[in-house]
């Protein structure tokens, strides 16, 4: 992105009167500088909220910048390049937090996909799994992805879960652009914000139920994971099976354990890829209701890919996909 009119701006930007604004912040980091793009999606396209967001960013105590440049290629977009005194890698986490706090005030979008395209390369041939997909999901929404096999549902979930990067476009999870993060950053993001549920349960058969539930906390280095894990197990009504091994459970029970595991670290986003695919209709319905409760009681955003029509009926938003793009978005 080339920028025109580049100004030098001093840090003492006067805080502007509170304007209600929504937008996004994205950034890329290199060794001594990082570039942020602040976007305002509001109709009036005033640069003021952009400057306000930029100022907040700069006022963070940890960000020791000595100079920065700003460009306004469009009244709704502000591009800012800062020069950092410290290497970017240690800064980026701080920056991400900063964006998040900035955006959370301005916008309550938990997940934003902005013109996302994803290509896979198989045998030298590029395969386009997602094509120019844009999507915003607010906190506390239950969104269901439907569509034929191969239409890109799992791909979308993987991008949303910071498991992979888009080929172009950006994915913002809780205001943090996955493009700006290193592998360690992505891991950190997953540890804090994302929980996964799979079609084939994916419990570790060498661990007990309780240990399976603890796992995300343990991997994140939380010392005393047991109480939270028990609490989640109680929540999915499996507390009495805590010491069993996965192979001693039914499919439905396993999936409930998997849900408890996906929630144990209090993520803001839960991604479920065909969680009912291996279950009979009745059990599947129980699982979907449980996910619904998750959204309601825990204020968590759930994205679920499914082939089940009944499940889709319970969602806040149904996104119908076809050949890698969004065909229809139905808000109930």
């Amino acid at each position: 992105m080339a920028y025109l009119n580049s100004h030098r701006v001093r840090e003492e930007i006067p805080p502007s009167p509170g304007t209600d604004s929504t937008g996004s912040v994205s950034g890329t980091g290199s060794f001594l500088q990082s570039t942020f793009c602040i976007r305002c999606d509001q109709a009036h396209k005033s640069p003021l909220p952009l400057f306000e967001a930029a100022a907040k960013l700069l006022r963070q105590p940890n960000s020791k910048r000595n100079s920065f440049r700003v460009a306004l290629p469009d009244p709704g977009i502000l591009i800012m390049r800062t020069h950092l005194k410290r290497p970017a890698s240690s800064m980026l986490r701080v920056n991400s937090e900063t964006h998040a706090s900035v955006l959370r005030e301005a916008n309550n979008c938990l997940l934003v996909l902005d013109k996302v395209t994803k290509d896979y390369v198989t045998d030298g041939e590029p395969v386009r799994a997602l094509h120019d997909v844009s999507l915003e999901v607010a906190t506390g929404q239950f969104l269901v992805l439907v569509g034929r096999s191969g239409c890109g549902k799992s791909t979308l979930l993987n991008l949303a879960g910071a498991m992979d990067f888009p080929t172009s476009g950006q994915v913002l999870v809780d205001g943090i652009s996955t493009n700006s993060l290193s592998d360690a950053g992505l891991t950190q993001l997953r540890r804090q914000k994302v929980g996964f549920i799979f079609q084939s349960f994916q419990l570790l058969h060498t661990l007990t139920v309780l240990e399976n539930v603890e796992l995300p906390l343990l991997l994140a280095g939380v010392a005393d994971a047991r109480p939270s894990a028990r609490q989640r197990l109680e929540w999915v009504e499996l507390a009495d099976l805590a010491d069993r091994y996965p192979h001693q459970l039914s499919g439905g029970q396993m999936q409930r354990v998997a849900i408890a595991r996906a929630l144990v670290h209090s993520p803001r986003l839960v991604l479920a890829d065909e969680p009912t695919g291996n279950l009979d209709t009745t059990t599947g319905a129980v699982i979907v209701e449980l996910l619904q409760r998750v959204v309601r009681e825990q204020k968590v955003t759930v994205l679920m890919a499914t082939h089940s029509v009944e499940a889709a009926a319970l969602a806040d938003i149904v996104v119908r996909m076809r050949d890698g793009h969004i065909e229809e978005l139905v808000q109930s």
Partner: protein
Amino acid sequence: MLSVRLFYRLIVRPLLREPWRAALTVFAVALGVSVVLAIELAGNAAAGSFRSSLETLSGNTNLEVTAAGGIPEQTVATLERLPYPIELHARVEDYTTVADSAQTVPLIGLDLISESNNDSPQSRAFDTVDAENALQYLNDLNSVWVGSRLGYKPGDRIRLLVNDHTREYVVRGIFNDQNEGVSAIVMDIATAQREVGRMGRVDRVLLKVPDEPSIEEWQSRIRDALPSGIEVRLEGSGTAENRKMLSAFRWNLRVLSYVALVVGAFLIYNTISVSVVRRRPEIGIVRALGATRGAILLAFLGEAACFGVAGSLLALPLGRALASVAVRLLSMTVESLYVSSTPGSAALNLPSAILGVLVGIAVAVVSALSPAREASLVSPVEAMARARREYIARVHKARDLWIALAMALAAGLASRMPAVEGKPLFGYLSAILLIGASVFAIPAFVDRLSTLSSNLLGRCFGVEALLASRSLAGSLRRTSVLVGALATAIAMMTAVGIMVGSFRQTIVVWMNDQLPADLYLRPAGDESADRHPTMSPEFADALAKLPGVAAVDRYRAYEISYQGLPATLAGADLQVMRDFRSSDFVSGRAPDKVLDEMRRRDAAIISEPFSNKHRVHAGQSINVPLGGRNVSLRIVDVYYDYASERGVIVIDRMTLLRYLPDPAPSNLAVYVQQGANVDAVRQEIEFAAAGRNVLVFTDRDLRREAIRIFDRTFAITYALEAVAILVAVMGIGGALLALVIDRRREFGLLRFMGAATGQLRKIILVEAGLLGVLANLVGLGLGFLLSLVLIFVINKQSFGWTIQFHWPVAVLVGALSAVYAATVVAGLYPARLATRLNPIEVIHEE
């Protein structure tokens, strides 16, 4: 056709997909086989087919006449006068060192006058160049004939060290070397007698008797004509005796060399098991499509055979290369402990190559039998199973524990059994049973330990340790096999380490008692267990008169043959002999009493190996041919002796002189007067020894030298252990690689759950580390038990030594830490692989 396609689909394709793991397995087999091959080749070469170097220039004779201490010339005359058509070659045999090249070669004294009458091509080699000078040459006591390989020309001067003196000789002629690789120096027998100090005696008479009647008949006819102490035996009996003497040594070495192969067998077992477990769905499919049980069995045995063939073929050049290193080590050992013999070259011969390949294939196929059978029992229904079933190995822990117990008991019983024909067969059986017992006990042990420790590990080393230990317990069978392989290698290393360490310590303690004199003298030249060069008796007398010298102990050794085995007969000065302490005797009696019983009588003390080899004990009598007489010696006591594995008979020097009146000593021990300065006395001695080639040692020198020889001797055992460990560690590496591939879905899942790549790496490394710890624990325990079998059964029965148990702590700690580190290092590449997996791809794989 079907079976070929089956083989391709089930075996070849999966192997090609994982070339690294296949290569590791092949290389492990290759190492195992090559070690066996190397020891076989080197063993043959090092002992030079166990022919004593003195067998050179013996022509096509068929009987030989010998006697302890030499054959009196009258006896030779008796032989010559026998009314039979026999050809007769009297010989003086000894060794000499060529002063310029420091090479020790046989010195053979032949009766050149009578040889020139014989018409053999060999005799003709010693024809004097021009007959006119013949008499002069023979009269000049400085004529020698030299083997062509030594590189001299007629007319050259050559300086030779014989016993304790060096003289210059003139090369009168060159002859073609016989006996592979050995060059000799020939003198006229009269010259030789004078030079080696054997006036009036010869060492051996070789006979060629006619074919009719039988050779046994001739043997008894000639024996009847000779006095009782003279032995008539088949020519080359010495070789047979040497071979017999060395057989225990070679046996034990051979057994050790198979350890790496046994470890390799574990790994083949594991590789095939992994193949079977992984390809269960495919096996189900081909079974459903009509493949028979037998075809499946054959396919997997075929896989093992492929590993066997590839490994063995690779092992041929590898073994050949290892052999040339081993041969140098071995020949030094053989020389210093057993017999002078020139190493041949470690050439790869067809029989050894075939043996190597067959052993490789056999081991591979046998170790694959059980997993291949399991594969053949997979039912076609498994093809229909929707998701790949987590394979839970059927391990019968409780039953296995009982088997282990039974085997351990049997091992205990076997260790109490006596040797079979000098070979500790039951000792080996006991060792094998112990290894078997531990292999069967490992699953229960691993299960117990990992269950007990996994939570603790999780708490101390984080969730990665918890996952690693759970995974090990989860695939119990695989873990057990790996632990078994590494533990066996570690156990052998520990056992041999303890045995060698104990042996070394025993020798150190023994030598502290054993060398009470202040200075020791022997003729210069290389040392070898069967060479006993002498010093002039006047020199010994002169020493005793030197100021500061309290006493001189003369020791004379002869090479004899006792009941078909080489032995050493020695005479020691009992007047001054203070060499013994009560702790030196097996009976624990006071040395004064023991020595009193020997004084001037036909009585002897024998070394512990002699007692064990020939099963003779204090109170019994032995018949020893001495100076043309058969002498019955009463055994007064048995003494500990770690200097030589060959048996030793010690009698009073006065007794010895009665039968063999040669006063020249082979060794002297000098006691310095109290208060005298040892260094000053040493200088006096060196001054007195001017003109003689005598070496003077302090007790400390001798101890150091003995330990140096000892360490050199056991270097090869350490090398063998190291190879076994290497094979095991390679196996661990390969198995971890397989484990990463098999558990890739789990690793993918962990990434979804927020695991960093570093955490995956840590899981693999912790797993490698845990395998290392388990194997070290089992290996140490098993190694301790094996060391008991080695020390108190196998060693005792093979070599006849009593060894005091001793923990070589530093060596063990060093070796075990090195093994542990190697195990963890073996996890590095698999760990890297785990971090490079794409989680999205692997999590959706079936």
